[in-house]
C-alpha cells in the first residue's frame, strides 16, 4: 500500500495498527522464542482487542509474554508454528478445543514465508517426507527420493521488530533477534516494523541494510523495551565447560 502523506513513520504502535487491525485477519509475527519479537505491536493488537486472529509465528510466546498476551485474552483462533512448548495457556486452550494449531517444520515455515513474499507458489522439499507432515500433500520422487510440495505463505499483516530503522523503512537487525523478521517483512500485505532506534535517512550504511524499505509500509519507534530472557544461562569465570 502507498505510504500516507506523513510518510511511513507513526507516533506509536497503536496508531500504526488502529486503522488496519480487524477481526479474523492473518498476522505474521516475527521473533524466535521471546528474542526479536515485536513486543509493542503485539501489545497494540491486545489493546485494540481484535479477535479471531490467525497468527503465523515460530513460537507462541510464554504465559503473558509475547503472543502469550493475545492467547490469554483469547484473541487468537489459530496458530501456525513449529514449536509451542513453553506456553501453558496455549496447552489449556488447545486441549479444550478452543484453539487450532497447524505445525510446520521450522525450515518449511521459514521457506513458505520466503516463497510467499517472493511470489513463488510452492516448492518441493525433503523435509517431512514420510511423516504426517506430508499427509494430504502432493509428493514426488526425484532421483528416487521423496519430496513434499509446500506452498508459499502470506498474511494480511506482518509485524516485525528490528534494531535500527530509518524513515524509508530500511531495517537492520541485531544478532539472533533477526530470525524470522526479515522473511516475514516481505510477506505481509501490510508490514509494520517497530525499531529500538529510529534514525535519519543516510545514517544506515546502504551496504548493511537487511530489509530494504520497500517491504516496510509503516514504522514506529518502540520505547522501553522489556526484551525478556527465557533461559538465562551463564558460566562461572573459573569454569572450562562451555555449556551446563
Amino acid at each position: 500500500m502507498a505510504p500516507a502523506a506523513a510518510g511511513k513513520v507513526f507516533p506509536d504502535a497503536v496508531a500504526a495498527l488502529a486503522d488496519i487491525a480487524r477481526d479474523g485477519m492473518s498476522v505474521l509475527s516475527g521473533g524466535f522464542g521471546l528474542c526479536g519479537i515485536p513486543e509493542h505491536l503485539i501489545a497494540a493488537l491486545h489493546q485494540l482487542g481484535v479477535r479471531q486472529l490467525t497468527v503465523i509465528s515460530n513460537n507462541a510466546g510464554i504465559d503473558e509474554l509475547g503472543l502469550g498476551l493475545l492467547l490469554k485474552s483469547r484473541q487468537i483462533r489459530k496458530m501456525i508454528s513449529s514449536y509451542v512448548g513453553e506456553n501453558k495457556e496455549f496447552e489449556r486452550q488447545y486441549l479444550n478445543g478452543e484453539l487450532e494449531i497447524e505445525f510446520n517444520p521450522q525450515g518449511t515455515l521459514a521457506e513458505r514465508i520466503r516463497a510467499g513474499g517472493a511470489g513463488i507458489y510452492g516448492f518441493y522439499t525433503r523435509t517431512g517426507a514420510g511423516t504426517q507432515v506430508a499427509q494430504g500433500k502432493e509428493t514426488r520422487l526425484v532421483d528416487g527420493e521423496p519430496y513434499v510440495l509446500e506452498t508459499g505463505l502470506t498474511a494480511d499483516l506482518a509485524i516485525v521488530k528490528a534494531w535500527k530503522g530509518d524513515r524509508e523503512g530500511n531495517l537492520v537487525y541485531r544478532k539472533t533477534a533477526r530470525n524470522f523478521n526479515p522473511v516475514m517483512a516481505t510477506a505481509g500485505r501490510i508490514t509494520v516494523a517497530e525499531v529500538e532506534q529510529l534514525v535519519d535517512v543516510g545514517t544506515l550504511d546502504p551496504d548493511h541494510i537487511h530489509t530494504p524499505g520497500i517491504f516496510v509500509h509503516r514504522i514506529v519507534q518502540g520505547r522501553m523495551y522489556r526484551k525478556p530472557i527465557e533461559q538465562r544461562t551463564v558460566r562461572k569465570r573459573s569454569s572450562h565447560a562451555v555449556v551446563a
Partner: protein
Amino acid sequence: MPWSREQMAERAARELHDGFYVNLGIGIPTLVANYIPAGIKVVLQSENGMLGMGPFPYEGEEDPDLINAGKQTITELPISSYFSSADSFGMIRGGHIDLSVLGGMEVSEHGDLANWMVPGKVVKGMGGAMDLVAGVRRVIVLMEHVARDGSPKFKPSCELPLTGASVVDMLITDLAVFSRPDRHVGFDLIELAPGVTEAQVRERTTARFRSAARAKG
C-alpha cells in the same frame, strides 16, 4: 556399567572431524560441545540464525538478542555470523551442515527417527528437527537404550509419529553404539559400554542389528 549422559556426549564428540559445521540438538546433544577433542575445530550452528556459537556468557553479560535454539543465552566468537531463519534452514536443508546430533524417543532398525510427539500427550511441535534430519549429511541420535518402563526404544519400526524416515546414521545409547555405512543397510553394533555384553544389549533391543565381532566392551 552403562555410560552416563556426559559419557554419551563424550562418545558422540569422537565423531567430530576438524572443520565440521555441526548442529547440536537440545538436551544431551548440547553437552557434546563440552567434549570437543583437542586439536579439532568445529563450528556450531544454531538454527535460529547463527554460525560460530560461543559458550554461555559470564554472569552479567547476558544479551537478550543473543540466544541459541534452546532459547539459552550464549556468546559470539570472532568467526560468528548471523542470518535469517530462511538462510539458516537453507544451510541445513541444502546439505551444508556436516553433522547433526539429536535426541530421540524411538529409532527403528531402518534408521527411522521419532522424537517430536507422543499422541494423546501434549503436542509441542517439531521445531527444526524434521529439517535437520532431512538435510544434514550425517545424523547421530543420542538416547537412553530403554524407556523408563524398561521397554526397548531401538525397535523394528517406530510406533510414534516419525520425524524422518531412514535418516539415522549412528545411534549412541547408554549401553552401546550402532552404526551403518549408508542409509540402504541395517545397523552394526560397533561398541559396547564398559562391562556391558552384547547379550545384555540384545535383551533390551527388539531392532535387528548385526553383531560386530570386534565390538569392544
